[in-house]
């Protein structure tokens, strides 16, 4: 139940590998946040620094305004659950009991706390069994119980559900959510799977190449992604982009992608100072498609229809450009001509470098 503050933390492995670059992050007391990003973005390094497994090359770590950078994991009282399910060669009960045993907690209290933790995880019925013989899902529950039983300052979860069967995954997500809610437990979840991050966390820190790009609520990340990377990373599939030039024609301001243009007259004032070359972004699920001609819409030919889960992903070609549209039901077939529109409130404009303008 702790607020965590990372102040300008940089970490370099060996001599050259800069895993973390001047990252500053404040995690509110009692919140569940996710560190999200592709492999190698620095999320695991960040977590290990918070855990105390790693001393940062530079920068400080604070728990509730106390500098803990030099303190061990034990002293910080953090709990960590790994992707690789860690189980000791003992019974389930002894596994959960271990951290309390080490801290010399009196027997009666130990038994009480272990039983409580086991009940929370739904594993009270296997307490006397050898933990190593159970299936991965149950084993991870034991690991979670063991982490929980210590009443830690912060729970660190490193992609813990990757090696677990889908049924248990759902159960564990529910348990994690409840733990956090009922106990105001500060939790940090590391993952490369946006579904986990979007489902569980209140805020997500999207990272890339050692830098924290945007730290925001899932809604904000989805609606107003700060740069093209975040916009592309969040969403299935993510946002698509077109290179455009800002042009003026008959008094109206247009973003011209070559094969089509979008009217941006009402925000032209904000755009002009960023130069002529801008990027236009729109999410495939926001692209409007119709088989009938509509005023103001442009036409494109459908070159591929892909089924994506329960929806359809259409690839629409116009000239050299390809537009992807995601819709629930369609009678559009490959080869058909369709009419396309980008609703203006869903369009996002980015600088050439990828930063959000509007």
């Amino acid at each position, binding site marked *: 139940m702790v607020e965590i503050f990372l102040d300008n933390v940089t970490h370099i492995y060996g001599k050259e590998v800069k895993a973390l670059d001047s990252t500053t992050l404040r995690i509110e007391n009692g919140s569940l946040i996710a560190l999200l990003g592709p492999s190698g973005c620095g999320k695991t390094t960040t977590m290990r620094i918070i*855990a*105390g*497994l790693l001393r940062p090359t530079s920068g400080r770590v604070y728990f509730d305004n106390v500098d803990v950078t030099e303190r061990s*994991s*034990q002293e910080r009282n*953090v*709990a*960590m659950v*790994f992707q*690789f399910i*860690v189980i*000791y*060669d*003992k019974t389930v009960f002894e596994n959960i009991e*271990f*951290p309390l045993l*080490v*801290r010399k907690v009196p027997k009666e209290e130990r038994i009480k706390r272990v039983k409580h933790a086991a009940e929370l995880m739904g594993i009270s019925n296997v307490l006397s069994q*050898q933990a*190593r*013989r159970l299936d991965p899902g149950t084993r991870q529950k034991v*690991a979670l119980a*063991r982490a929980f039983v*210590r009443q830690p300052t912060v729970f660190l979860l490193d992609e813990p559900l990757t090696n677990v069967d889908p049924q248990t995954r759902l159960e564990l997500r529910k348990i994690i959510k409840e733990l956090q809610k009922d106990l105001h437990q500060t939790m940090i979840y590391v993952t490369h799977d946006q579904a986990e991050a979007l489902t569980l966390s209140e805020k997500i820190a999207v990272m890339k190449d050692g830098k924290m790009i945007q730290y925001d609520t899932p809604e904000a990340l989805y609606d107003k992604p700060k740069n093209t990377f975040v916009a592309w990373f969040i969403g299935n599939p993510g946002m698509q982009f077109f290179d455009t030039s800002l042009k003026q024609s008959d008094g109206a301001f247009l973003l011209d992608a070559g094969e089509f243009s979008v009217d941006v007259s009402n925000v032209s004032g904000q755009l002009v100072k960023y130069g002529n070359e801008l990027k236009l972004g729109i999410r495939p699920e926001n692209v409007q498609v119709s088989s009938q001609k509509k005023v103001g819409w442009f036409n494109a030919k459908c070159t591929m229809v892909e089924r994506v889960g329960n929806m359809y992903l259409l690839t629409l070609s116009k000239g050299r450009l390809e537009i992807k549209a995601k819709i629930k039901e369609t009678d559009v077939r490959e080869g058909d001509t369709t009419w396309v529109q980008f609703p203006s409130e869903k369009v996002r404009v980015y600088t050439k470098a990828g930063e959000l303008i509007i």
Partner: protein
Amino acid sequence: MKKISFRSKTLFIALIPMIYLYGLVIYPFASVIYYSFFSYDIGGTPVFNGVGNYIQLFTDTQFYRTLGLTLSYSILAVGTEFLFGIGLAYILVHISRGRSVATSILILPLVMTPAVAGIIWRIMFDAGFGHVNFYLSLIGIPGQKWLIRPTEAFISTVIVDVWQWTPFVTLVTFAGLTTLPVELVESAYIDGASEFRTFKDILLPRIRALLYIILFLRVIDTLKIFDTVYTMTGGGPGTATTYMSIFNYLNLMTFYHIGYGCTIAAFFIVLMNVVVTILSKRAGAALFAT
């Protein structure tokens, strides 16, 4: 030849050394069993004796003394090797520099020929001029009659075995420990366990199967011990260090009781078989549980 495939052909070729080895083992083995039922001293002719040799064996007090000595030797040596061996492995795990130097030094006793080791230690254990008594005197302990008195001789053979094979226990245990996932140690660290506790309660149990295998190998080896002891003490003084293999050898090659020698050998084979079966079942069970 419908199902002959690339894989089957390779299997056939792999069988050839098996057949060869089997032939080389079965024939001598069969001979030993055969002659164990005969009264046969060198120079004479084999006379069928039924179980006469076996009765002689089981009423031979020297046989029981040998059996007792061998078992004591095995228990003492293996016990000490495990204690020191795992202790050294603990140290190896916790030093970061000098590990390769330490490993190279540890290997030295292992690579020495057992017979040569026996000879060297005989010199070292010499009561008058040996190195052991010399260094003991430097720290104020009076010299012992190492190879002269029975108990001291027994102890000295155990010391040599421990000297030579503790590194084996250490290095194999260490190798096993390196295969363990680092998250195991990290989790224990985060849980607050001390280094010693992590080693004892978390890491060692994980390599239980490997430890059983080391135990298994060492017990077999010590029961069969011959080279080092024979060159160091010859089985003496008297019969103070006459272990099973030496007893067998003396009867066969020194006294030339071929028949009786074979009987001892046959018994020994059966004994070893029983021990191996029991121990390998336990090792297998531990392995399976992992």
